[in-house]
C-alpha cells in the first residue's frame, strides 16, 4: 500500500506515502488511537461535570 520511498531515493513510482506507518495494521492501530482519545476526552469531561454538580449541591 505504501509506495514511499521510491527506488534510489526518488519520487519515481511513489503514490501513497505514509512513511513509517507502512501496513494496514499500523493504520488501523493509529485509527483506534484516535477513537480512544475522542471517546476518552468526552468521558473525562462528563465525569468532571458530574463532580461539579456534586460540589454545587
Amino acid at each position: 500500500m505504501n509506495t514511499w520511498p521510491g527506488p534510489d531515493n526518488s519520487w519515481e513510482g511513489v503514490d501513497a506515502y505514509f512513511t513509517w506507518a507502512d501496513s494496514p495494521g499500523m493504520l488501523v492501530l493509529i485509527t483506534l488511537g484516535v477513537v480512544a482519545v475522542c471517546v476518552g476526552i468526552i468521558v473525562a469531561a462528563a465525569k468532571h461535570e458530574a463532580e461539579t454538580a456534586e460540589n454545587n449541591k
Partner: protein
Amino acid sequence: MTLEELNVFVTTQANVGMEAYYWWCTALMVIIHVGFLMYEVGATRMQNAVSSGVKNLLAFAFMIPTFWLFGWWIYLAFPGGFVPIDLEGYGAPWNTSMGPMLSDQATGIFWAAFTLFACTTASIFSGSVIERIRISSFTFLAVILGSVVWILGASWGWHPDGWLVTRFGFHDVAAAGCVHTIAGLFAFGVLLNLGPRIGKYNEDGTANDLEGHSLVLSFVGLLTLIVGFFGFLGGCLIWGGADLGGWTNIYGAPATLSSFVFNTLMGLSGGMIGAFWWSKGNPFWMMSGGLAGIFICASGLDIWYPGFAFLLGIVAGCVIIPANNFLHNTFKIDDCVGAVSIHGVCGILGMLVVGLFASGYPAAGDIPPSSFMGQLISACVMALVGFVPGYGISFIMKQADWLRVPDSVQKAGIDKAELGLQAYHN
C-alpha cells in the same frame, strides 16, 4: 509544446486550480464558526459566556477527527438508503485515499470542505441549547449530527447517486435541506428533551426574556458568519476542471458562481429588510433574517431570478419571528437564537419553493427533473432525518441523566462552577 504536453499542462492546472479553490472555500468556512461563536457568546448571559464559547470550539475540534473516522465514508457508502455499498475500502480512515497520495488531488480537499459543512451543522445546533446543556453531552450530540446524521441526509439528497436525487429529482443545490433543515430539526428534537433555561418560563406558562450580555457581539457575529457562508456556498459548486464543461451544481447540471452570488446577495438583502420591518428594527432579528433569506433561496440558488430571490428573502425575514413565537408558545422550548425557525423552517420553505416555482427544471444524466412532489417528499425525509435522531438520542441521554446541567450549577453559573473562569474582569 506537443499536444501531449499541452494535455498534461491543462490537466495539471485544472487539478491544482481545483485544490486551491476548495482549499480557500474551506478556509472561508472557518469564519462561519468565528461568527457563530460571537453570535452565541453575545446571546449568552455573562455568567455562561465562556462555556458557550468552549462548547462551540469543542464541536469544531471533535468534528474533524470524527468526520475523518466515519463521516466521509457514510457520505460515500449510503446513497441507496440504509445499506452501505461496497467501496472496497475507499473512504475508510485506514485506506490510502485518506492520507497523502500523489495521484489523488480530490479526496482530501473534498473531505475538508464536507468536514466544514459538518461543523456548520453543529454550530447551527449549538446556539439553540446554550446555558443549560452539558458540554460533554453537547459535544457527543454535535458529533452525531455532523459526522452521522447530516451526512447521511447528504448521501441521500446531495450525492448524485442519492435515492432522493435519482428517484425524485431532488434539487437542493446549496443545502437548505441536508444542512439547514436537518440541523434545525435535530436541534428541535433535542430542545424538547433538554428543557428551557431556569427562569425562562413562569408557572403560568408565560415566558421571560433572558437577554444575552452583548447584542453588539451577536449581530457583528451574524454579519461575520455571512462572510463565511461565501465559502460554504462556493463549496456547493463542482469545479469545472479540464472537461471544458465549466461549473456544475452538485448534481452535475450546468451552473455558475454568478447565479449563486446574484441570489445569495439578493436573498440576504431581502431577509434583512423583511426582518427589519417585522421586528421593528431589532438588529438581532435583522441579521438572522439575512441568513434566513439565504437559506430560503438555497435549494434553488442556481436558478432563481434575483428579484424573486429578494422577494423570497422578504418572506423569510417576515416568517422567522412568528414561527419562532409559535414554536415557543406551543412546545415551550427555549431556542435561544431562533435556530429552529431560521434554519429548520426556512430550510423546509427553501425546498418547497423549488417545487412550486421551478418544477420541471432539468437535471443531468438520468436524474429526473425537479417536481413539487419530489421536493415535498424530500423535505419530509430531511425533516425526519434531523428530528428523529435528535429527539431519540437526547431522550435516551435524558433518561441517563447525561443531558442537562443541574439547576444548582446553572444558578452558580457554568463558567465559574465548571471551568473556574469568567469572561470579563474588572
